[in-house]
């Protein structure tokens, strides 16, 4: 399988959120605004890529019987680094969502890719798989974040200065004057509803493209 195919498979076909249904806890908890979603996407990508590439590099050294503790140790190291970097360089965002960055350690999406892919494959393949997984997760996070922020506050891109410096505060776009929207979208039940609809949409879209691309005798 080529590197590009590995990437698209991990990002779209085997998307962690809508195909494997992994990592849903932080996905639902943090996706109430675009800036939160982007922050978690960046932190998760950092951990997924760093940890999986390290695991792939050390795959001949890690003793088979103790591989899971080793994976968790490496993932925890990268997670702690991500938390420290965030506390230093994106402090506002850190105060909002530190807990959800810390629990990236327990995100089974990353441990799953480590066990199923990184510990068996070479560096480049692992890199492209990890990037694909991270992108797939980021797509879902951002889609949810955009929809929820738009519905809940009637605006978009609030608080982007926490990630991109003071100039980014002018990115905030407000559609409704009141700043009041559908409160449900900001709360956990709303997250479940929107995530469910998005999941159904992605499944339908995926099924359609599969039908078009596969030969007629393959579908029964």
């Amino acid at each position, binding site marked *: 399988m080529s590197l590009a195919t590995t990437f698209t498979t991990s990002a779209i076909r085997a998307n962690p959120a809508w195909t494997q249904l992994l990592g849903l806890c932080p996905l639902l908890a943090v996706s*109430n605004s675009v800036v939160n979603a982007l922050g978690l996407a960046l932190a998760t990508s950092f951990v997924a890529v760093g940890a999986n590439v390290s695991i792939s590099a*050390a795959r001949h*050294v*890690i*003793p088979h*019987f*103790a591989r899971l503790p*080793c994976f968790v*140790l*490496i993932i925890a*190291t990268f997670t*702690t*680094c991500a938390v*420290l*970097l965030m*506390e*230093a*360089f994106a*402090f506002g965002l850190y*105060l909002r969502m530190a807990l959800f960055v810390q629990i990236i350690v327990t995100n089974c999406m990353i441990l799953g890719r480590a066990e199923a892919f990184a510990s068996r494959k070479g560096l480049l393949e692992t890199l492209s798989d990890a990037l694909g997984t991270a992108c797939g997760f980021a797509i879902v996070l951002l889609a949810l974040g955009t929809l929820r922020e738009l519905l*809940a506050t009637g605006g978009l891109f609030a608080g982007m200065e926490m990630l991109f410096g003071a100039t980014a505060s002018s990115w905030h776009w407000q559609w409704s004057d009141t700043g009041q929207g559908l*409160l449900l979208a*900001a*709360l956990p039940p709303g997250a479940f509803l929107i995530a469910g609809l998005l999941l159904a949409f992605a499944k339908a879209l995926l099924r359609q493209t599969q039908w078009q691309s596969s030969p007629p005798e393959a579908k029964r």
Partner: protein
Amino acid sequence: MTNKGADKGVQSILALVGIALVCATLLAGTRALTAPQITANHAMLAQNELRALLGKEVVSVPEDWIDGLWQRCDGSLIARAQVAGYAGPIELLVALDGTPVERLSGVRITRHQETAGIADFLNRPDAGWLAALADSAVSDLAARDAVTGATITSRAVLAALFETTTRAAASQSRCES
């Protein structure tokens, strides 16, 4: 045969120690790189919170708060408090006036995890319920009503304020400015 097994054991242990060392080095490096910035961020946050509470620049922020209290020489007193809310701890910063403590002159909620929308009044210290609290006599606290729909949250805040004034009154003597 046993020799080979022992070799493998030693190899595994060496590998584990090696991985642990690499991870520890990476962590220590990141920590050393970020520590000054993190300390500065937290100091800035404390400064901003105090400025918001007092409405003016605070020249010297004390390093150590005794029992969560900072007694200032002008007779005012600033207290930190934490209380269990509906969805997690609520942290407050309270300014008190008078000897003995008789007035609340400012209340700021510095951190909370209460339900968005319902407990949004915690984020608006200059309007509504919190603003009314921020300028009131300590003796009126007990008669204060809770906020409809956020009874647990607002009662927790009231309880924290009550506890803080009691604590402040009991230890009001020192002066550090």
